[in-house]
């Protein structure tokens, strides 16, 4: 069968690809902020999954997937705030945001 026979599969594949891209970014970039951005991308891919499952799932009126997505958006916002705050704090300590220069616990 063709991969995109069903709409759900299309969305899931896009989400998977986006997830992989985000992961690659988080794994390969040096800058801490870029890692955070990659993580945000991964979260978003997950959200896309949730929404897609909600839309094509058997019980859309239960709103479960939607709620999950909304909550995870909120949580992602919090995560971004704290993460970036940490990055800034680290930058104050060791004048760099290059991850492979930051490998000691005590600054």
């Amino acid at each position: 069968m063709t991969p995109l026979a069903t709409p759900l599969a299309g969305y899931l594949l896009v989400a998977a690809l986006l997830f992989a891209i985000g992961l690659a970014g988080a794994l390969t970039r040096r800058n801490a902020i870029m890692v955070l951005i990659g993580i945000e991308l991964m979260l978003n891919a997950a959200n896309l999954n949730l929404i897609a499952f909600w839309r094509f799932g058997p019980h859309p009126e239960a709103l479960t997937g939607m709620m999950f997505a909304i909550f995870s958006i909120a949580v992602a916002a919090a995560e971004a705030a704290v993460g970036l705050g940490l990055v800034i704090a680290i930058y104050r300590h060791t004048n760099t945001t290059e991850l492979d220069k930051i490998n000691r616990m005590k600054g």
Partner: protein
Amino acid sequence: MNAVFYILAALTLAGGLATVLLKHLVHCALAVTVAFAGLALLFLQLDAQFAGFAQILVYIGAVAILIVFAILLTRGSELPKGGVFSSTWLVGLAIAAGVFAVLGWAVLQSVRAVPQQNAVPVVTVHDIGNALMGRYVLPLEIVALLLTAATIGAVIVAMHEKERQP
């Protein structure tokens, strides 16, 4: 599978790729914004109006701005000396590829099994509000607490600490 979906998917993925590949951090931030916008449009395409707008409001309105601020505050706006990719980028790429392979395989394996309904679900904001206030009220409260804690925490973490003399 209509054209709109393909266009939006292409937009989103292009934004994601640009985010990962571009050298300049600010460009990356802008590219990721494009990806966010594409995702929001995909949500709309999936008849999830509320989630889509929330996505725009939170990600483009707040997270993107946060990222940009962080970049400027850490002098990330000028290019680093050694390249932007870490020394062992190949491994990372391989692992990411592996993840995608597994996920894709899983999707193609299991998507047939999922029962699907293609009727457009009618979900008004009112329903969402009721669900949030009724069935999901506890999660809502917890998320509210979490956000408060995160705000305070972020402020405290990023605050200037006293210059202590060694």
